[in-house]
């Protein structure tokens, strides 16, 4: 059993869900045009993956093996609906910006993957920490990509003007392929630090 600290920090870099496991890439491209939606998306996903890991871990001894996926889906879907309703109630503008991508957390491989790979075999406390770590690991990449795209695309960060008015926004940074390139560069930087080589 890995230490509590390792459970949380491992997904930050060494076992990052996006850059190492290549999960959840779709939303990393879609909601990273600017910082605000990326941060809200991070919070939403962290909440869902943490709570779903905890609940599934608590239920792990009573879930029949044959229908475990359906049970997991039911738990995750309920949590996503709660999140979606909360966003609509309190952060309506951001929720509109995120559009379907909050709902699509249900199909996000990170949430399902952690439930299958971790929560089903591990006690609640470890599962909770694992969920938290993966949510934050996802968020680190999301927020980094969004910061780069917003900075070069609009010359702003979280809506505040950073570069002078004369700055000509880079249109490519705002397109999905631009997000792919930024993500690729992040992976390049990360791997040259971690000395990680794909086999």
């Amino acid at each position, binding site marked *: 059993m890995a230490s509590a600290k390792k459970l949380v920090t491992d997904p930050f870099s060494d076992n990052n869900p996006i850059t190492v496991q290549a999960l959840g890439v779709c939303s990393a491209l879609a909601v990273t045009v600017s910082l605000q939606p990326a941060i809200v998306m991070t919070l939403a996903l962290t909440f869902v993956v943490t709570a779903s890991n905890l609940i599934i871990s608590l239920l792990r001894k009573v879930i029949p093996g044959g229908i475990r996926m359906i049970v997991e889906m039911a738990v995750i879907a309920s949590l996503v609906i709660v999140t979606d309703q909360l966003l609509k109630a309190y952060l309506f503008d951001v929720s509109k910006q995120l559009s379907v991508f909050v709902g699509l957390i249900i199909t996000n491989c990170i949430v399902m993957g952690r439930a299958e790979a971790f929560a089903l075999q591990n006690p609640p406390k470890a599962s909770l920490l694992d969920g938290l770590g993966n949510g934050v690991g996802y968020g680190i990449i999301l927020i980094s990509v969004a910061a780069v795209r917003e900075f070069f695309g609009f010359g702003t960060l979280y809506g505040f003007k950073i570069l002078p008015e004369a700055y000509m926004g*880079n*249109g*490519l*940074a705002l*397109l999905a392929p631009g997000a792919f*390139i930024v993500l690729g560069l992040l992976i*390049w930087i990360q791997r040259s630090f971690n000395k990680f080589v794909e086999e």
Partner: protein
Amino acid sequence: MKFLFDLQDKYLAPLFEKGGKFEKLYPLFEAGDTFARTPGDVTKGAPHVRDSIDQKRLMIFVIYALTPCILFGIWNAGHQFNVHNNVEEATFLMDMIRGSLMVLPIIFTSYLVGGICEVTFALIRKHEINEGFLVSGMLFPLTLAPTTPLWQVALGIAFGIIIGKEIFGGVGYNVLNPALTGRAFLFFAYPAQISGDQVWVGSASKAPLVNQIMGYTPTTTDGVTMATPLGVAASSEGVSAQAALADAGYSLSNMVSGVIPGSIGSTSVIAILLGLGYLMITGVASSRIIFSGIAGAAAMGALFNLLPLDNSFAALPFYYHIVMGGFLFGIVFMATDPVSAAASNRGKLIYGFLIGVLTVIIRVANPAYPEGIMLAILFMNVMAPMIDHYVVQGHIKQRTKLARALNHA
């Protein structure tokens, strides 16, 4: 000369070789050394008999072939400027000077910034500085508008060299053509400076420094608006594309001569054909790619002519597609890049043909991208390894069948 080289071998070389003082800078020394002469190193592994034309010499041939396009591009940039800004009595010399002031900074920036990227990676990754860069660094500016801001030139070539080439491991490993990668970056990042009808002719109001040097006072403060033939054809509505082109003053003859607004190096069919001739005689570029590409564009253009489509661009006679825009420049100088093109003979035919076909489809079917050759080449660059794979598989299958038949007989 011999005396100088002896001195270099004796005193300079040891400084840069393993254990020397400047060991880290070896790629720089090596580049300078092999640029000036063919070094006397002996081969360490087979094959021992090698052609005297190595990659460096090969790449220089492409630069020679580009010379007509460069010179014509410089003159044409200046000529278009003087004509459309109503400069009275502009002589050939004035056109050349004005063009040089517009085009040479772009070429210089491309070489400088691209060179810095190339050398930095060569030093870190310890690979040779490759003359392939001389070609990319020249092809890239020739595909730009004469009014492209220099900071965009710098960004574009840096993107092309780093993302298009170095992250894959340098020359020989690049999937995409670096020059076109840089242009595609600018096209999507800053579309206003590389497409539309505001950028192809320099405007007097936007070049105060050049005006001062030439002692010229602009008469208007507006930008000069001139659409390229592709822009005219793509936006022709109600009338036939041919009529729209004629209306805008574009005929087959001036599109062939290239005295029209457009990307710096790619307007003149004649200049490109001169380069093509040189490439064919020296055998540097693949004639399979070039001629199957032209055949592909003509075939697709002719097919569009036959189809009953409600699209005036589709009805444009097929031979227009070959002389219009950057098609010929792209197929002769870009598609033939030996690294990113298909390698097998049959593969080259398929690769070239599909580039031609795709170019015309993109032009006609997608008015948002009037110039299709850039996207077509990049797309086929990605497909090239797959084409080669199937060509080789097909060959193996054929040979096995033959061998079986012979065994049974």
